């Protein structure tokens, strides 16, 4: 597989490896998958991801696909969405799901946690104003429960409200009755999700073996 590609490809791979931390085999596999999804074109569109049959039953499919096309996740400064992405952006988004390495200092863990939580935050904060408003949070919970039927829409609202109340209570502590809690800022988000060790949980296994032939 490696021999088929020309030398500039390997050079690019090494660049990517340095930037994202994947190994060369993993990058090769992901590239194959990218090519499979985009039908051998250079760029990937939203439709291509939409067509993945396994994703069809995922309740938050739309948000996941959006995250791939969200410029905030490309580790460059800028917001907004793009219509199509290249392999580099695909790899960058995938790199958010790398596991922590064995010998990490406490600081590095903290940094990794921030990066991953930032990704989650961006997924919730759809209008990019830096806060997750009640509406956005409600949307999140509704999407999560969207497969459970229309019965639960009211409960979804209630759950979102209770969660928001919890965040506000923990972060703000004391608020006057006429004050208004604008939304969850990134710092508050970090505080409330301190308990779930995100750096150990938000990762998937990137294989070194090519499995694109097996999966759709």
């Amino acid at each position, binding site marked *: 597989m490696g021999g088929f590609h020309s030398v500039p490809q390997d050079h690019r791979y090494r660049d990517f490896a340095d930037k994202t931390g994947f190994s060369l085999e993993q990058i090769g596999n992901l590239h194959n998958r990218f090519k499979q999804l985009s039908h051998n074109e250079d760029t990937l569109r939203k439709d291509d991801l939409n067509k993945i049959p396994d994703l069809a039953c995922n309740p938050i499919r739309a948000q996941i696909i959006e995250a791939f096309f969200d410029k905030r996740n490309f580790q460059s400064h800028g917001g907004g969405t793009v219509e199509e992405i290249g392999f580099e952006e695909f790899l960058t988004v995938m790199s958010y799901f790398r596991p922590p390495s064995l010998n990490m200092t406490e600081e590095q863990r903290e940094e990794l946690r921030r990066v991953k939580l930032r990704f989650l935050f961006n997924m919730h904060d759809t209008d990019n104003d830096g806060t997750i408003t009640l509406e956005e949070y409600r949307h999140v919970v509704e999407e999560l429960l969207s497969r459970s039927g229309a019965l639960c829409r009211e409960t979804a*609202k209630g759950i979102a409200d209770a969660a928001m109340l919890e965040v506000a209570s923990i972060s703000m502590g004391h608020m006057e009755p006429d004050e208004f809690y604008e939304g969850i800022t990134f710092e508050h988000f970090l505080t409330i999700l301190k308990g779930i060790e995100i750096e150990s949980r938000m990762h998937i296994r990137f294989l070194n073996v090519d499995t694109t032939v097996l999966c759709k």
Partner: protein
Amino acid sequence: MACRHLTHLACGWNGEVGRRLVTVTLLAVFLVGTVLPLGAASSPEITVGLNGDHTPHQPNNDHDDHASHNTTKKAFPVLSFDFERIGMPFEISLWVLLASLMKLGFHLTPRLSGIVPESCLLIVVGLLVGGLIKVVGQKPPVLESNLFFLCLLPPIILDAGYFLPIRPFTENMGTILIFAVVGTLWNAFFVGGALYGICQLEGVHLKNYDLLSCLLFGSIISAVDPVAVLAVFEEIHINELLHILVFGESLLNDAVTVVLYHLFEEFAGVGTVTMVDVLLGIVCFLVVSLGGILVGAIYGILAAFTSRFTSHTRVIEPLFVFLYSYMAYLSAEVFHLSGIMALIACGVVMRPYVEANISHKSHTTIKYFLKMWSSVSETLIFIFLGVSTVAGDHNWNWTFVTSTVLLSLVARVLGVVGLTFVINKFRIVKLTTKDQFIIAYGGLRGAIAFSLGYLLDKVHFPMRDMFLTAIITVIFFTVFVQGMTIRPLVDLLAVKKKQETKRSINEEIHTQFLDHLLTGIEDICGHYGHHHWKDKMNRFNKKYVKKCLIAGERSKEPQLIAFYHKMEMKHAIELVESGGNVKLPSALPSTVSMQNIQPKKLQERALPQIPKGREEEIRKILRTNLQKTRQRLQSYNRHTLVVDPYEDGWNEVLLKRKKINQMSNYLTVPAGPPESPTLARARLSSDPQAWSMKPDSDGVPAIKVDLASPQSPPDSVNITDEFGKRSGPPAGGGEEGGLVMKRPHPPPSLSVTAATKEEKGGRRQQQQPEEDEEGRDPQRLMRCLSDPGPSAEEEEDEPFLP
């Protein structure tokens, strides 16, 4: 009586740890020691006449009595002493009482229990009791294997299996299995082989120990014991990962132990093990473990299915759980399958479905019964271990015993280090050296090893006594030395401890979100990983299995909602139990309330809905405790209520809800004018959260109450506005529009749906006749508030008066 003594001791002698302990011990021991010999000595029936005296130890009396029976008329025995009849149950009760008193005593001495783990103290007590019995002249009882395996072990395992934390267990399943299977095999062969080598040495005089006996011994001694691990690890509060690794290993290695034990026991007499036997052994292992799990799963499903129909007989619900689990254990033991794995599988399989079906009280009952039985069992096991040490015939051989202890330690360390090296290649979150040390150090041996050794047939295994001595020594060493030192070591090495935080709703939302996110990313990545299969199983579970095993509409409840309802229920109970003085759930004094979050301009007031079953439970709980809050309610001026949003308004809203719920097709009168706006504002403004009904059919009257903080005059204006809207057409879907009283037309289905919902206690029937009520009636509300009794609804069936 003894208990009172103990409490007096506790109060009076604060700080005199040693004296207290000794007194407690002596009391209980005296209690036991005096009666047990009496019971043990078989005594014929002894009667005490009005004028007679007796001695229990003279069987000659018997003949005299019999003789005198025929010849002279004895005085009518007013008081007789007949111990034999109740001897056995009395003895058992006495032992259990002793165990419980010991437990009580240890917790009254915090300094001692801080240093020494409970298991050590209990073994010491056992030694004392055994010594006492021996001194008196009786033969102390030994821990019989049948008693142990059939009575003492199952409650502990069931308790462990039922409350097993599933998520960390399944996430680390690979690691646990490798430790359990490969680790135990390595231990068994290493210890057995090395011991054989040592026995062959000159000067040890143990040449008659053949290889198979040594291997058998190795297999007995190699298994990490769940009882000992639980007893020690429970107290050190180590982090979840390490706890589940060691504990999971101790549970799953049972299959290996069973197979090895039977294999070597079978062939120890014959003398050789061929390749075929080894292969058969491997097959046997698969059969034992998978068969055990299958048996457990079948019984688990049966239990879940049975619990679906118990809505009318709530009282015996816990019994089904216990019985099915015990049957699973026994059935597995019949076929020499792994009973422990069957029990674990049964508990794990049945738990999610049973918990969705049974009532809250049954859940509490199950929890406390399991905890109680497992606690008593554990105590008894350790005490009996001590007694058995004194009782048994020992054959002490320095070489054998010390080499056993050393070899088991060495084997454990080598095994853990070697396996971790291999495992870390596949794990994403790797095990550090500290983790490895704790895992190796936490491999305690316990009563299972002793019982297995005790089961050995003395004829085939003449060296049984030496084995038992060595086993007991190893157990003592691991429990005392390792058990006592593990806590300071954990502190010394700064191993991560368990986080005591409660699960918050945010964490739950994000855990679910993360699950779906990772599954999606895996799908995009193109490989079927851990998350993909877990997701598939969840979907299968939701689609097919839940429908069969969970009653009613709970089968469709998503996990997030179930969690949310559970949390709300817990808060309601907390509120009631503390008489309305409970702090905010966030445990921070906070004035933040829903009002601060809701943007003012939006009219919508979303409310959580709960299905009727939950409502019923919450209502019942609150109603039975309404008395406490009633006084407070009436003494408050609502306008100046304190900040606690979970206060009094809760229950009255629920009561109001209940009234409106019962509105059926008899409601033809539109809602009359409400009470004075002030009252309405006041009442509603104190509502923390109100439950609206599930709009499962069109036109169900849905009342949504403003989620407002206690002081919210601005909001109350909105309320009265919406009152005006009330008689208008119902808002679409009933979601928007805040206080909307939807009463379009009497839905004929309403009473049916109300009545057919599976409810506890038949409340439905009582509430049916209270039609045409308008919850808005202030007098009615006051009346229902003033009458907290369970029969409140029956009086409320007057026709609605506008």
